[in-house]
């Protein structure tokens, strides 16, 4: 399906063609859920947010203007829904994190040498490292590394200049590198 076909289906969906909308959902559900999952760290949350994304998108179809790639629009909706979710759950999550740190020290334990062996592998650590990034760094990293989007499109989705995308990506990579070096040892990478 080409980008123009996406817009064509979107216009048909706006007029009530549910098959056209279903085709769009099928096409974008995996990248959207992946984005939401990497942003939240929870598959259950990711599916809920992805549903919200597509429902919001459907209700806005007749107002959308074809000024960018349809995938950019989809990711904009996914990003908004994800940030809303993170905002809403932020307080609860911070409390849970604090509780976990105090009770089983699992989060801090990752950084202790004697607990390193408990880590399944470096990929698991990478997952944790991505989750530890600040949301504004995490989103650009995910859009670049998992979705393969270029700086221009990431800037369109994140609503910031390309220069900001560049610096956020650089910081995200560096923080991730330092995190892995700290948790897995300097020679891990």
């Amino acid at each position, binding site marked *: 399906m080409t980008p123009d076909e996406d817009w064509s289906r979107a216009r048909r969906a706006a007029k009530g063609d549910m098959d056209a909308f279903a085709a769009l959902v099928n096409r974008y559900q995996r990248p959207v859920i992946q984005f939401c999952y990497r942003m939240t760290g929870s598959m259950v949350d990711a599916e809920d947010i992805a549903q919200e994304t597509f429902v919001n998108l459907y209700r806005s179809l007749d107002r959308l203007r074809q000024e960018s790639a349809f995938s950019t629009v989809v990711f904009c909706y996914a990003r908004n829904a994800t940030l809303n979710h993170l905002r809403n759950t932020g307080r609860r999550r911070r409390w849970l994190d604090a509780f976990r740190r105090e009770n089983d020290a699992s989060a801090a334990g990752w950084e202790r040498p004697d607990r390193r062996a408990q880590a399944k592998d470096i990929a698991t650590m990478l997952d944790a490292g991505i989750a530890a990034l600040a949301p504004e760094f995490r989103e650009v990293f995910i859009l670049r590394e998992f979705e393969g989007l270029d*700086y221009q499109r990431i800037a369109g989705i994140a609503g910031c200049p390309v220069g900001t995308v560049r610096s956020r990506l650089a910081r995200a990579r560096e923080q991730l590198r330092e995190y892995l070096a700290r948790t897995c040892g300097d020679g891990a990478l």
Partner: protein
Amino acid sequence: MIAQNDEMKKLERLGMLLDGESADPEGDLRWVESDADMARRYRDYLRIRDLVNTLETPDTSAGFTGRVLARVAGPEDTVIPRYRYALAAGALIMLGCLFLYLRFAGNSEIPSAPHMAAEPPAVVNEDFPDADMAFMSSIAESAEFLDMSLSLASLEEIPGEELFSLVAEIASDEEALSGALEEEGTATQALYLEDGTGEALSFAELFDFVETLDAMEADVVNQALRAALEAA
């Protein structure tokens, strides 16, 4: 700070090379190879990218598309139910503000007027005699001439000199009007202020008089003006 900025610039350049966004990839690659620290980071970033590619996203649960379609086909949850608590709280606050306004608005004190201020006519009676109407009109015309409106606030802010001019104009208009009416043989009485002894003072006389007054004496004149306006 400068060192940090330089470091950041280097990392951004490295990232652009890694992401295929560099304007000069060959030159950037030579730069990386010439800098041991950057070369190490470049290798680490490539390794992280390889690891990212090994990460798996859990499969979407079956029937995802069906659930989305069921939701969009269902009744739309409008903004009002979603924000009903916020709306209710807003409405309560508005009601509270309205109640407080109604409760205390009547008790608010109006700042006292400057000592030379004349209180504006409180009520314009439609049954005013013609002479009084002429008097009111002359006030309006004089105020217009002095580029003032007749609102309470502006009238209370008239500086002393302007008030004197206003009074003088009113007085001369009043005398002209009286003269004109007398010429037509109509019995009329010019508008006078009483000085408290039964003697009447014309506006012209009053103007000459108040010009010499100090603040305390001006207050007395002010009272007389107010009394005259109320009587009118």
